[in-house]
């Protein structure tokens, strides 16, 4: 199955005040999707002008979040937005799944918490690698994680 990123009009991202210049959505359904998502995030960080260390931070955070959605959430979607605000540019990643949600978000953010194949550093680690972090588990189920990193300039 070929999965093509779906482009949608910019600026409709979840959880943001800054203007989105560009928005793409990717499925997170298969192992191949995980790699595809990483490549897309890498491309977005390059486009935004991040240095190599920041690129690595954002791609690593993305890898943790999409893996969580794939393993714990039964798959979902990744939205990549390139943002601009006065004094800087940024990349926002929104990973949502329709899984059971997270019963105890505080516990899930603590290092060492794991119900799957990771080391339990995924969610808390992603939070440390990014400037902004939001997690939402609506009552109806599912998990939405939204993270942003800004350029320093």
């Amino acid at each position, binding site marked *: 199955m070929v999965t093509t990123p779906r482009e949608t009009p910019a600026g409709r991202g979840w959880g943001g005040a800054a203007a989105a210049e560009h928005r793409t959505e990717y499925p997170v359904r298969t192992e191949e999707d995980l*790699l595809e998502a990483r490549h897309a995030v890498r491309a977005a960080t390059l486009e935004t002008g991040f240095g190599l260390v920041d690129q*690595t931070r954002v791609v*690593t955070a993305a890898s943790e979040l999409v893996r969580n959605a794939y393993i714990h959430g039964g798959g979902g979607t990744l939205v990549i937005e390139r943002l601009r605000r006065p004094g800087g540019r940024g990349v926002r990643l929104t990973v949502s799944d329709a899984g059971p949600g997270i019963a105890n978000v505080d516990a899930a953010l603590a290092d060492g918490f794991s119900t799957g*194949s990771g*080391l*339990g*550093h995924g969610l808390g*680690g992603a939070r*440390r690698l990014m400037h902004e972090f939001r997690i939402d588990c609506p009552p109806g189920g599912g998990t939405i994680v939204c993270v942003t990193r800004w350029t320093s300039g």
Partner: protein
Amino acid sequence: MPILRLGDVLVTGLLDELDDRSAMAFVDELTERITREAATGVLIDISRLEIIDSFVARTLSELTTTARLLGARVIVAGMRPPVAITLVELGLKLHGVETALNAEAGMAALGWYRTRSSREGSRGDDAS
């Protein structure tokens, strides 16, 4: 990724496109080769890894522990500096995993040394 044997050392590497299935296949093959060839050392070059997330970190940790139980010492070589910075921020310390700056330093730690004659022999085609 091929696994080469140099004396009692196995030399291999990880590619950036590591997914769960290929990671498990890699661990299986490497442990089988350690046993079959009675390897006492394993060099894993990771200079092509653009990121190490908690999944890859776990794979490296478990592989190191398994190899040690089979009598082989693992050295992970060539981590890119941005990857090292990110790993620390992520909170992953890769406990128990021995590292080396590059493959050559890793091989030296496993008892392989570049001799004077090999150094002279490679002069001219050594880009560095």
